[in-house]
């Protein structure tokens, strides 16, 4: 069949492995043509089939692991019992539909509003206290001239990123806990000890501090890359015009970083309701859910621990919808500021 010149067969031939012949003609069609718009669907397919084939595995993965599971959100409108069927899907078909009942339960649950409040406060704190840190660190690292010192300091900054949360929190407990190094040292010298790890009042600062220690160094990478792309000519020209260190920073470096900062900010806002799962779950019991429950742990607790699947799915759905709205809004703001944002129409 593969000797036919009918496009469809050829595409078929390609999938069955007769690749060498396929590469020629479509490439030949490309010169002189205006991009896609005017081509027929079939021609475009012929032209791009190699690319399409290459993306196919990724598309399948996205479909199977991102899009198909979206259908599972249907259980948010059910009283889902996974055990009434042989598999999850059969169980979905047999579980009763309850309309918006799960959502009503959620909105009536004070613990949910605690989780929303904690999530937003944490997001705010992280935005103010965490977000700028990598930028400052990047500027510092960038100002180091000697390659060796620079490499070493970068390595030190990145390293904590590779520690697991369990380890990070254990280390914090050993240092700042009620029986930690600092408290015990104070006691041995006749002072009162203290316990930073179980104080609900400062928990959100603690979580942010842990985040900074662990991940700020990692965040430096993107900004360093952006800084590397700034043309040295600009600095020289600015220096020729008599700009000092700070003016160069203000008028050259920061404007160069602006698109990246805007992009990351949009992404961060879209992720606003995701403020750390494992990290918070591990410390939830130390301060109680009143201070530590965030939306992700709330969903986990109700879904996985209490097996109230529909309830958790509904809570997850709410979170998802709000997140989409936030991304759209943040993107819009980025456009208004004249930046690219995440995408453009």
């Amino acid at each position, binding site marked *: 069949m593969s000797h036919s010149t009918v496009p469809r067969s050829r595409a078929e031939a390609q999938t069955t492995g007769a690749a060498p012949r396929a590469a020629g003609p479509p490439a030949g069609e490309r010169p002189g043509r205006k991009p896609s718009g005017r081509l027929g669907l079939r021609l475009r397919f012929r032209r791009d089939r190699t690319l399409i084939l290459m993306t196919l595995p990724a598309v399948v993965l996205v479909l199977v692991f991102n899009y198909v599971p979206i259908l599972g959100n249907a259980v948010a409108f059910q009283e889902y019992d996974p*055990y*009434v069927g042989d598999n999850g899907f059969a*169980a979905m078909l047999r579980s009763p539909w309850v309309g918006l009942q799960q959502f009503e339960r959620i909105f009536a649950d004070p613990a949910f509003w605690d989780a929303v409040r904690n999530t937003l406060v944490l997001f705010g704190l992280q935005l103010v206290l965490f977000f700028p840190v990598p930028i400052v660190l990047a500027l510092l690292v960038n100002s180091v001239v000697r390659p060796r010192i620079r490499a070493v300091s970068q390595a030190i900054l990145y390293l904590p990123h590779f520690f697991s949360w369990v380890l990070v929190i254990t280390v914090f407990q050993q240092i700042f806990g*009620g029986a930690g190094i600092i408290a015990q040292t104070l*006691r041995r010298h006749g002072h009162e000890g203290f316990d930073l790890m179980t104080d609900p009042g400062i928990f959100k600062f603690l979580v942010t501090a842990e985040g900074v220690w662990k991940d700020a160094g990692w965040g430096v990478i993107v900004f360093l890359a952006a800084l590397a792309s700034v043309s040295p000519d600009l600095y020289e020209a600015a220096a020729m015009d008599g700009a000092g260190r700070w003016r160069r920073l203000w008028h050259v470096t920061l404007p160069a970083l602006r698109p990246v900062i805007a992009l990351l900010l949009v992404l961060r806002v879209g992720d606003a309701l995701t403020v750390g799962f494992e990290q918070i779950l591990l*410390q939830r019991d*130390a301060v*109680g859910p009143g201070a530590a429950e965030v939306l992700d742990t709330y969903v986990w607790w109700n879904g996985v621990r*209490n097996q109230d699947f529909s309830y958790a799915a509904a809570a997850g759905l709410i979170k998802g919808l709000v997140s989409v709205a936030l991304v759209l809004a943040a993107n819009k703001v980025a456009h208004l500021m004249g930046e690219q944002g995440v995408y453009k129409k």
Partner: protein
Amino acid sequence: MTPNAASASPGQSRRSFLAATGLATAAVTGGMPLLAACGGAEDGSKDGTTSGKSAQKLLPAYVASNVVTPDIPARNGSAMGFTRKLDLAGLKTSVPKKHGRGGSIRIMSPFWGTPPKGDNAYYRAMNDLIGVDITWQNQDGNTYDEKLGAVLASSDLPDVVVIPSWNMGGRIPSAIIGKFADLGPYLSGDGVKKYPNLAAVPTGAWQYSIFGGKLRGLPQPAPSVTGIVPFYRKDVFDEEGYEIPTTADEFLALAKEITRPRAKVWACDDMKWTAFNVFGVLSGSEKPLGWNLADGKMVYRVETEEYLEALEWTRKLYAAGVVHPDARAVRGTAGDRFTAGQVLIYNNNISDWWGKMAEQAGQRSDLRISGMDIFGADGGDPTLWAGSPAGIFAFVNKKASKAVVEDVLAAADVTAAPYGTKEYMLTNYGVEGTHYTVEDGVPTKNDKGNQEVVNAYVMLAGPAPTIAHPDLPVIAEEQVKWQQRMGAFTRKSVFWGMQITEPARYTNLSDDFEQLEDDVVRGRRKIGDVQQAVSDWRKQGGDELRDWYRKLHDDTGSAQ
């Protein structure tokens, strides 16, 4: 005590730690075992219990087996104790010929500690004795409930799934009824006589294995005396001259005396579960045990004065600063703080009594653990509530063929062998020379034994509750005696011994109490919040659930 106690190791103590905290989990996560065929059923046949005549028809016949006469017979709901030297040369054979037909079985089971390689000398020896090729899918016992729900919801279920009763929260009971096989055709009545060791499993444990009107579980029988022991460092107490407290106030006073943060010593770890026992709070381990008739009124544990008093006392301990800060932060392991001397009192499953001694034998031979008697809050006799006749069950996949079910029963017949048999010795100690050595007639597990002969086969089905530590007979005696003393104060609540499934709509009703307890004792919430939560609980279904239990009780009476 479970037969596992005999094979305890550092991992074993984690297991029991879980058993202790598991109580809490069960309390928080919801619905309990179900039952068909009976009164109170409003949602069809899935909830309720099976008792009386309908239960009689399902129960296996009981044929006692006395291989070795216990030195301390079971009394007051205790285990039986063996303290004499074991005659290793004279071990009996309780399974004369292999029942197993050489099939292969996959078993998923919780595992506390670090699982050994899948192919090891212990598993090979056991499989050889049973005549079945068993593959263990060992899962972390501390997070078992997080995986169990997903595994049970999948279409690819192992042949056998082991489920502890404290992991039967949420919708697990409905999964047990929907996904697991009825063993009645193999075991009911005289059917069990084909498996002599299973026939010697106490009837109460079998009755408790009836889920959804069918005999579905292979039980690991448990003593009815509470498993939570307030342990103390006897070596330190003796040296410092501390007196064992006999009232709640004395405990607090002693705790203040002991606590010296400068020296990194705190009196105790989290004592909430002991507080519940001291104040006589109804059991929180399984939901039906939390209900009782008081002056003709059906009450749930959270509604009682005792519950509030217990929380208030525990709160005082935290407020007085006598609880280790890491316990407040819920980090690390209580047992480790105890052996390290950072706390002198902690509570855990009774298996730690031997477990900690054995664990520390090589490193700290002067360490001596002991359990204090549970005292009544005001100094009188305590009121303790009986625990269930079985704590861990093995279930067979509904889709398993007859041959697979029979192979599983063959395996269970070996693991349920009583003390003094070759099968018990292999199950709990492994192979002589490989897993344990014998010195002066006393078997002691070596490193390989401690690695491999842990959990797994003992999870399948067990003999009547047994405590025997040939290496530390004194400890075995103390354990059984403690159980018997506490057993004298132990009462059975009205639904004791009945496997009850609440209607699905109440599954998550009581989820939040455990969290609230932990908040209150740590001073983050107030006792008033508990009272508020109880009043909400009544309105949101607690009162309806009370009526349901009331009707269940009227229809079935109690099992006692």
